[in-house]
């Protein structure tokens, strides 16, 4: 996954340079942020505070004819408890591909991808299939509305079911 992230990052970097230099049929973003989170849990009646981590996101959308576009999105985040550093760690990666149709102000589409997550207490990672649809509407270049619905389930469970 790290290799894929680095490769994807270099590819996006190259595309970013090209896109800034000339008019190209694709667009996207790269983002990097710091996250702090808290989670109240009943088990020990305590508050694991704070969890800190990084959030990396990148996406590219390729324009096609007829207002259609294909996009790829990648996100990665990690959170770890400051006190139990290296023990209470949750991390996740999301990679999705989407298909979109833009008809004036209205846009709709779907996405499918892989959501991998790992918690401190488990061996190995959970691989989850994520599927969904999205709908967007823009008004007067000022206001935009967006909605999505989706399903996320363990890939292992699906493989067993199919097998």
């Amino acid at each position: 996954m790290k290799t894929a992230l680095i490769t994807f990052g270099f590819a996006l970097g190259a595309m970013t340079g090209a896109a800034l230099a000339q008019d190209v049929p694709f667009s996207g973003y790269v983002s990097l942020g710091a996250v702090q989170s808290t989670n109240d849990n009943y088990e020990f009646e305590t508050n694991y505070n704070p969890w800190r981590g990084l959030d990396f996101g990148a996406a590219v959308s390729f324009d096609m004819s007829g207002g259609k576009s294909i996009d790829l999105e990648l996100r990665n985040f990690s959170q770890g408890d400051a006190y139990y550093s290296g023990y209470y760690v949750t991390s996740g990666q999301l990679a999705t591909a989407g298909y979109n149709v833009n008809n004036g102000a209205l846009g709709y589409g779907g996405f499918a991808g892989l959501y991998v997550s790992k918690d401190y207490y488990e061996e190995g990672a959970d691989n989850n299939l994520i599927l969904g649809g999205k709908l967007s509407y823009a008004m007067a270049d000022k206001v935009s509305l967006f909605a999505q619905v989706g399903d996320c389930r363990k890939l292992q469970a699906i493989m067993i079911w199919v097998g």
Partner: protein
Amino acid sequence: MGRVNFGTVSASYQVSDALRLAASLGAIGGKVGDDTGETATARAYSLEASYRVSGPVKVYANVNCYNTGDADWGNGRTIGLGLKVNFGGKSMANGKVADLDALSNMRWGGDW
């Protein structure tokens, strides 16, 4: 996490050329206990402000909350600060596919 369904609605408003505000409301629910088969639902709320610093470079700040309404499954909050660079001249507003923090928190809280 066994299987969860999620849905979000969000709205954004371009206050000025530089400033943009967005708010989201979501719901997540499903089977969260792999061994126990327990289920839980959560509501998620997000607010985000982004400010265009220069050209395609933006800074953003957001706060995400999720609440199960059930002491057994807990509540969570996340604040984030970051940098975002758009390229290609077209903004991919609201492109976030799923609330990873909320999905993760559901998993974390539910797998004991």
